[in-house]
């Protein structure tokens, strides 16, 4: 029994990933979360002095709050198990990653545990977000100063 032969047996007996079902579940839950986000945005616009542009920030903060409550009660875990990317891609997923790591680290103390572990999952999102933003802005700046492109 060599590895290649084994890979073949393993392939036959491992259930295939349900691509379509997962994609559909992700679409539905992701869509609903964004629709809720739209509702929150409208609420901020109607009842507070926010415009389309500025309401986005307030909506994101509110969504992260909601994901904190759901994560703490252990409900976001079930949503994630069902929806996969549908619950991870929206900003509530980012909130869930930070909050779940923070809750996890509590037994190791607030400084080393919570502080040290909080961005274990979501830190890469910030790193690559800021990193890519920096390089893209730099590239555009160079292109503009060369006159290839304008702002």
């Amino acid at each position: 029994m060599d590895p290649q032969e084994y890979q073949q047996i393993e392939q036959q007996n491992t259930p295939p990933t349900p691509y379509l079902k997962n994609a559909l579940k992700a679409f539905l839950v992701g869509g609903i979360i964004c629709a809720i986000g739209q509702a929150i945005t409208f609420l901020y616009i109607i009842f507070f002095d926010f415009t389309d542009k500025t309401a986005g920030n307030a909506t994101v903060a509110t969504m992260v709050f909601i994901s904190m409550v759901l994560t703490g009660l252990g409900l976001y875990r079930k949503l994630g198990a069902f929806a996969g990317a549908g619950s991870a891609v929206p900003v509530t997923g980012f909130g869930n990653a930070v909050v779940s790591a923070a809750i996890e680290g509590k037994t190791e103390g607030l400084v080393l545990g919570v502080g040290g572990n909080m961005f274990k999952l979501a830190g890469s999102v910030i790193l690559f977000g800021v990193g890519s933003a920096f390089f893209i802005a730099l590239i555009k700046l160079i292109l503009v100063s060369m006159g290839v492109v304008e702002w």
Partner: protein
Amino acid sequence: MLSLVSLFLVGCTNEQTVEISDMSNDEEERAEIEAMIKDTEEVQTGTTILVEDDVLIAIQVKPWLGFKERKIEAKLQKEIEEKYPDLNVLVSSDYKMLWESQKLLEEEDEKKVSDEVKKLKDLAKEET
């Protein structure tokens, strides 16, 4: 809140609904601006407030043309500014402007309307 409810009732037919309230009742100017808004057929609903030398035009483009919202806004802004250089014009496709300006349609007191329009214009400039 009343104006918001009316928004829901408006049928999703594609005919335009353009409302204008003109405090300085310059009839000719009013009709001209209304015509210009109606010409840009991408606009689904438009609400205009004319008070003293301020013009606030809140528009909403047809849903599926959302991508070009900014371009349409800029085009209309330029057109009206050329037509009325002395007026202080702002065209915005922001929901806030639309809903607030619809409230102002029923507002009688000119002073209040003018302050409100100025406040909305500052709001529009805010970045974060």
